């Protein structure tokens, strides 16, 4: 065990990567599922060990191949990315048992192994972006996860899934290329790619050559914002989430955009530093403005959707608005709200998409009118939907309230009470689009489509109920979410660490 401990950062990436290759070679769906399950269940232990080490103090620097940073690629784990690693790993581990029946139902027999292969590659890419301390390495992992994501989306049954995947490929590639242009400009002025090293050299470079630094900031902001679907760069997201297989939607909605947000926070606070970034340039105002636009416009569009997966996708765009709002506020409470909402939104949205996946498994549709009266037929599933829906609204006692509390405190200190009112007003829109589903599902006569429906098998029900319980649990006991997020935010706001 002691021989393995120093290599945990590498294992976090290597294990899913090898798992992906193995799953691809095995060719049979059930065996590939077993590999994916084993890998997914191992990941939280590795991430947990890393988190436990960094909570004890300091950060971990891992030299890949023994090359000394900044020359070699460095994996750097601190409280912030250990938290995100834990988030991605736990979501993967909790939702994986759900995949077996859901994937068997939605994907052709011959393609299931490839689906799991792509899932593991996507997991590798997401964990890689999070753990790496090298800007170009992050680009490579960005593309690993993105290419796998395009395949996962295209695996959907509907032919529109192909179109959604193609559109995401175009937008995603433009985003990644913008990111790499930004990294290139930073490399030209600093001569380095290591995040820590770049940030150390950037202050001087920015005084000598401010223009390429500002251009790099602009390219990086736009590139990563495309990836995280910041309004108005979100156009790829609704169709991608609506037509992807249920499990793929769940996993992507809970993790993929979150990791892109992580990268944006890392660039803003660890690389550019709050001083350079937020005082000389109107970045803060821009991000806050777009976030508010996202919170209202996307929530408003969500109200009129009849495809519920699409509705939740628009809700995701709105929720990402809350997360970026905290980045724009850029004080400790605001950033705590952002980071804790990464986890909180992942939990709630995963629960909601799992519930819809279960509905699709039983009645083969996620159209609103097909769900009428389904509540009493699938009581546990729809009860979970209601609880997680309360989380999205931000009701006290759920995780959504915790995030909004920190955001409101941050907004009050930095911007003033009008922004607090804006946060509350946008929550009311969530009441409408979640309430609409609750009304149709519980208070209408059953539609012919859901006469024979019942709660899904246990392997699908348990992940759903675990995430729903987490929606309540972390809304009351915030030690592991807001506590760690607060530490991470303190470290990031505290300057260049």
């Amino acid at each position: 065990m002691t021989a393995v401990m120093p290599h945990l950062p590498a294992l976090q990436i290597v294990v899913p990567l090898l798992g992906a290759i193995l799953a691809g070679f095995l060719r049979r769906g059930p065996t590939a599922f077993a590999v994916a399950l084993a890998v997914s269940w191992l990941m939280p232990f590795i991430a947990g060990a890393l988190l436990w080490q960094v909570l004890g103090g300091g950060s971990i620097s891992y030299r890949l191949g023994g090359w000394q940073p900044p020359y070699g690629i460095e994996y750097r784990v601190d409280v912030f990315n250990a938290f995100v690693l834990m988030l991605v790993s736990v979501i993967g581990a909790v939702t994986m048992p759900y995949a077996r029946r859901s994937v068997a139902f939605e994907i052709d027999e011959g393609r299931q192994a490839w689906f799991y292969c792509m899932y593991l590659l996507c997991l590798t890419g997401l964990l890689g972006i999070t753990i790496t301390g090298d800007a170009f390495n992050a680009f490579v992992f960005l593309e690993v996860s993105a290419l796998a994501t395009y395949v996962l989306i295209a695996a959907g049954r509907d032919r529109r899934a192909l179109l959604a995947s193609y559109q995401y490929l175009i937008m995603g590639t433009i985003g990644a290329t913008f990111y790499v242009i930004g990294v290139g400009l930073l490399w030209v002025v600093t001569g380095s790619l290591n995040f820590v090293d770049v940030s150390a050299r950037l202050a001087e470079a920015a005084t000598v050559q401010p223009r390429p630094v500002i251009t790099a900031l602009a390219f990086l902001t736009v590139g990563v914002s495309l990836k995280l679907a910041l309004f108005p760069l979100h156009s790829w997201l609704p169709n991608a989430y609506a037509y992807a297989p249920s499990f793929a939607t769940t996993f992507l909605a809970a993790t993929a955009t979150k990791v892109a947000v992580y990268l944006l926070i890392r660039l803003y606070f660890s690389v550019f530093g709050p001083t350079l970034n937020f005082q000389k340039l109107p970045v803060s105002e821009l991000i806050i403005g777009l976030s508010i636009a996202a919170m209202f416009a996307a929530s408003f569009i969500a109200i009129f959707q009849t495809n519920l997966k699409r509705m939740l996708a628009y809700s995701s765009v709105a929720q990402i608005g809350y997360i970026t709002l905290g980045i724009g506020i850029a004080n400790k409470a605001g950033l705590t709200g952002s980071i804790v909402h990464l986890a909180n939104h992942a939990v709630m949205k995963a629960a909601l998409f799992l519930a819809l996946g279960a509905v699709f498994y039983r009645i083969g549709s996620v159209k609103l009118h097909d769900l009428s009266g389904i509540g009493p037929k699938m009581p546990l599933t729809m009860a979970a939907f209601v609880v997680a829906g309360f989380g999205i609204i931000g009701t006290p006692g759920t995780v959504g309230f915790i995030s909004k509390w920190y955001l409101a405190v941050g907004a009050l200190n930095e911007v003033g009470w009008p922004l607090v009112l804006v946060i509350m007003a946008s929550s009311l829109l969530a009441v409408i689009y979640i309430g609409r589903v609750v009304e149709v599902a519980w208070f209408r006569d059953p539609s012919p489509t859901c006469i024979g429906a019942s709660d899904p098998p246990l392997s699908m029900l348990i992940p759903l109920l675990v995430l729903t319980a987490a929606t309540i649990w972390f809304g009351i006991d915030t030690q592991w979410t807001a506590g760690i997020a607060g530490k991470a935010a303190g470290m990031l706001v505290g300057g260049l660490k």
Partner: protein
Amino acid sequence: MQLVKTFAEHYNYVITIFLMMAGLYIVVARGNMVKKLIGLSIFQTSVYLLYITPGKIIGGTAPILDPAFTVYSNPLPHVLILTAIVVGVATLALGLALVVRINECYGTIEEDEIFAKDDDQ
């Protein structure tokens, strides 16, 4: 005269920016899915130039540790761009594969015709 001098001194960057804008314009303006992918490839290729250009030193050799050579080009961007080229090829291949599947399902690769077909349903 000053303009010509600036242009000539930054010849590579002018080409880079031209390719970047041309590629991005094709992606935005064309409705044909294969043409869009070609535009995307041109856009990505321009970034390869952006990286390679500052690494080159006129009169420099390959980075060989030898007292006879003192001026050499920076090898780092070449290594990075080798990786980026692989990523670009993979993206293009996947994009074309998707276009093939789209053509099988819709019978066309023109975006407006595809949207019209989905609206009919």
